[in-house]
């Protein structure tokens, strides 16, 4: 058994209004960062997963996302297992 650090990014589904992203973009521009655009704001989740292998860790993490961490109706997620 090994411990893997897993990083999950849960983002609002493309096309769905993202008021937070808009507000941040608006604020960035107001602060003089005109070069910023297409801002999206989502959730970042980090966790340890005990598993026999990297692949197993990833599979389990996917199950966690499908069941709880992401809402299939409105969100997409990306998953990375840290390599050490």
């Amino acid at each position, binding site marked *: 058994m090994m411990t893997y650090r897993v990083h999950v990014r849960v983002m609002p589904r493309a096309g769905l*209004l993202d*008021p*937070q992203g808009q507000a941040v973009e608006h604020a960035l521009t107001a602060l003089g960062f005109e070069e910023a655009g297409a801002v999206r704001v989502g959730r970042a989740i980090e966790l340890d997963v005990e598993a026999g292998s990297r692949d197993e860790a990833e599979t389990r993490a996917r199950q966690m996302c499908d069941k*709880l961490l992401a*809402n299939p109706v*409105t969100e997409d997620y990306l998953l990375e297992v840290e390599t050490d």
Partner: protein
Amino acid sequence: MPSVAVVRFPGSNCDWDSLRAAEAAGADAYFVWHRDTDLRGADIVLLPGGFSYGDYLRSGAIARFSPIMQAVQRHAGAGGPVLGICNGFQILCEAHLLPGALLRNAGLTFVSKPVDVTVERTETPFTGDYELGARLRLPVAHGEGRFVAPADTLRMLEAEGRVVLRYVAATEGSPFQPNPNGSANHIAGICNAAGNVVGIMPHPERAADRLLGLTGGSGFFTSMISVTQNSAKSRI
């Protein structure tokens, strides 16, 4: 006397308000705990407002897995009336008893104020006592009340007349925005295909008493009583 189970999750905070409103309408109302596994033969189930599990991750996302929710699923599947108010609505969506999702308000702040809504469906156990198109003033108090659903789902909801409450602008010169949270199609409440499961963001239990200034909400509770009594009669 119809029996009403008010489900308490850790973090529910409109549990007493809902219980009292149900009792005032003449129900035998009692609490069931989220760890319970049966509803003690309730005719009607209320999922009250609040912040179940702190609304952490997504409102309703964690409460949905409470043991009691399986009993609620069975009750709903058998056509039993279920009303989710505010956090209760969010839980019903997360549990897929209702379509769509409730996201952070478009204004990004918590919104607590009275809003005007119209009753757009009276064939539900909770709106039968209202006139179709009736205009109600009810308080909202939520940070995540923006209803969203895929385009085809929205079309279906409209086509099947499953929008129960819709935000409207009040009379001329009123301070109300038509929509406090940016909901799609100004939707404030919907029901499932059978019409027995209803979710609404406004709080009728806070608008059922003259002393509190607003009374438009009592119909939700009287309706559910009449319905269950009639269906009881028809069974005899």
